[in-house]
């Protein structure tokens, strides 16, 4: 990963966003084969692999528990109210490979999916939505993972 581009991607100002949007096209080509993001070791790298820095959106709703009794199975649901949603990504920020899942939503399928993810520790869950015209939007929610039971 090019460090200069990393810096740009991390900039979430309006200007940075425009720059990032400019990067989408080249990144899209990379993401076309689909699996590159899964080997990324940080959220920034994983986001870059799927197309760049998304814009925060209130039209994405993440349903996940505030506190998970066990990190091995954490229910996560994402609903996108953004018109033209074509892909939904689930990221678990602090996992060794943050990109957990990608869902391609064809015409006629509701832009809402539920699954269950592993979380090694308390972490942000980031949902990213890609629209048919290649724009990226995201929402973030924290889940606390607790130690349970008798402790051994």
């Amino acid at each position, binding site marked *: 990963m090019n460090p200069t581009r990393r810096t740009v991607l991390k900039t979430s100002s309006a200007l940075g966003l425009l720059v990032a949007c400019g990067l989408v096209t080249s990144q899209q080509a990379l993401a076309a084969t*689909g*699996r590159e993001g*899964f080997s990324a070791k940080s959220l920034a790298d994983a986001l870059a692999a799927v197309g760049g820095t998304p814009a925060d959106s209130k039209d994405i709703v993440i349903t996940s528990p505030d506190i998970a009794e066990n990190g*091995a*199975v*954490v*229910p996560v*649901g994402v609903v996108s109210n953004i018109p033209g949603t074509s892909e939904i990504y689930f990221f*678990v920020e602090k*996992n*060794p*490979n*943050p*990109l*957990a*899942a*990608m*869902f*391609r*939503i*064809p015409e*006629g*399928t*509701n832009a*809402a*999916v*539920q*699954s*269950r*993810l*592993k*979380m090694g520790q308390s972490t942000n869950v980031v949902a990213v939505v890609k629209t048919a015209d290649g724009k990226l939007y995201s929402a973030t929610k924290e889940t606390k993972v607790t130690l349970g039971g008798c402790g051994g």
Partner: protein
Amino acid sequence: MADPMKIRANAANGVTEVKVLMAHPMEAGIRKDAAGVVVPAHYITDVTVKHGERVVLQCLWGQSVSQNPYLAFKFKGGAKGDTVSVSWQDNLGESRTDQVTVA
């Protein structure tokens, strides 16, 4: 040979809700067994759900999806008696397809 999936597909008001449970260890490749040996990665990478012949959802998954994965979503259309099929493939080349009649 993997165990069969549990698939539910229910149609109501022109929308079909699909819920799937898949039997799979979803090993991330970082856990050590009792003898201290790392258990190799073994996880589902691709899932395709079809209504008849039409693809209604495609998934790419990584190691962070939980063991015995759960998937739920809805698509427009579908009627009682239609067929919904789910196929998965994993990183070791295993695969499985099961289908259910929409209720």
